[in-house]
């Protein structure tokens, strides 16, 4: 088992008062809590802070922790042979558990007295998927390490590997539940659930808003002015889109039903947002033709500016 210095994590002295510990925890929680913090590493840091606080805020758990002696953080250690006896802590195989398990079971046992059903812990993991995955549905392999009590009543961490079938039609930011895939319940309590936070990976072509998809559709000036038929990629394969003559930048062309499938039935739309682009290095011939156009055209793109310019 690896040692963690809970006092160092909270930034307090070993003889800190309960109040100082609480204050230090609250300060760090505000800084790193994943629901509050914008620190990308916040979640990881908060886990340590929360683990440290859970143990140190409970006077008995803190005494038991102090009893482990001081070690270097990360150092492999075993509690003294008679450790935990005075506190009624459980039996452990010390090799394959986390330090936090020691105190979680400990607090639980102490409070339990009788055999009150304790529901298993809920877990939450981020599931990064592609827009294509959301379009077709996908399977994702999940690797978790969960505490479990064996037949001898000893606690172990066991790897849990399973596949989750993610149905088609999920959207970015959506949460899914895997029932009973969290921590094991004790004394007949229900097993916890595993929650998946769906997160779309950035896509080179599409941007997703719910079930609707957006893409930029670059058009040449002549395609935009004269109208054109252009190929547009969709998740189900390219389709031919008719661009009407006189289409301006920013115009949204809707391809109905070409977005992500919705749960049950129906699907979102795909929007192609027009962007007029010009060749950055025009050929001599292109330059000549543009010049001819400039000489011949009466078109004033800034007519509205001149009217409203406040003269």
């Amino acid at each position, binding site marked *: 088992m690896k040692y963690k210095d809970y006092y160092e994590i909270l930034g307090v002295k070993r003889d800190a008062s309960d109040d100082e510990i609480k204050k230090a925890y*609250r300060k760090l*929680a*505000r800084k790193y*809590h994943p*629901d*509050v913090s914008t620190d990308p590493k916040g979640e990881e840091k*908060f886990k340590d802070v*929360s683990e440290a606080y859970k143990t140190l805020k409970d006077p008995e758990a803190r005494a038991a922790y102090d009893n482990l002696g001081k070690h270097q953080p990360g150092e492999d250690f075993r509690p003294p042979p008679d450790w935990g006896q005075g506190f009624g802590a459980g039996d452990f195989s010390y090799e394959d558990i986390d330090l936090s398990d020691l105190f979680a079971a400990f607090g639980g046992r102490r409070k339990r007295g009788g055999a009150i059903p304790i529901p298993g812990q*809920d877990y939450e993991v981020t599931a990064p998927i592609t827009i294509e995955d959301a379009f077709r549905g996908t*399977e994702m*392999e999940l690797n978790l390490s969960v505490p479990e009590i064996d037949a001898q009543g000893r606690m172990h961490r066991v790897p849990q*590997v*399973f*596949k*989750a*079938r*993610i*149905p088609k039609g999920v959207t*970015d930011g*959506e*949460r*899914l*539940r*895997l*029932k009973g*895939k969290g921590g094991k319940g004790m004394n007949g309590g229900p097993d916890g659930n595993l*929650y*998946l936070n769906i997160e779309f990976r950035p896509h080179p072509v599409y*941007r*997703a*808003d*719910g079930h*609707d998809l*957006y893409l*930029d559709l*670059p058009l040449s000036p002549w395609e935009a002015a004269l109208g054109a038929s252009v190929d547009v990629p969709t998740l189900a394969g390219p389709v031919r889109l008719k661009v009407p003559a006189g289409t301006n930048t*920013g115009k*949204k062309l809707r391809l109905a039903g070409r977005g992500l499938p919705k*749960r049950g039935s129906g699907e979102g739309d795909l*929007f192609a*947002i027009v*962007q007029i*682009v010009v*060749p*950055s*290095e025009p050929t001599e011939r292109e330059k000549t033709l543009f010049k001819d156009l400039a000489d011949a055209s009466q078109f004033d793109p800034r007519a509205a500016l001149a009217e409203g310019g406040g003269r």
Partner: protein
Amino acid sequence: MKIEITDAQWLNERAEVTLEELVELSGLPSELLIELVDYGALAPVKPQTEAQPARWRFGADCVVAVRTVSRLRGDFDLDANALSVALMLVERIRSLETRLQALQCQLPQVTKIRRT
């Protein structure tokens, strides 16, 4: 090791959830959820049945926000009053983020123009 496949379920299987289901999904006790309704932070969809909490129905889109404040409650030691404020703010942030995402989707991205 045998790998089993588990179906992931939508948190909101239906459009509405009961108080009992919200207790299960959020981990908050029903008394606290009832208090949040009293404070006006959480609103059942059919107010006329308000007299009987067992018959309340909540829009399933509140599940994620209620789960969030459930976490905040445990980690920050929040009481019901603080929780009701947090719930309203979380809901507001969520709706703003949704709108922000919708607007960002409509902004043109930097396009690489290549000459063919």
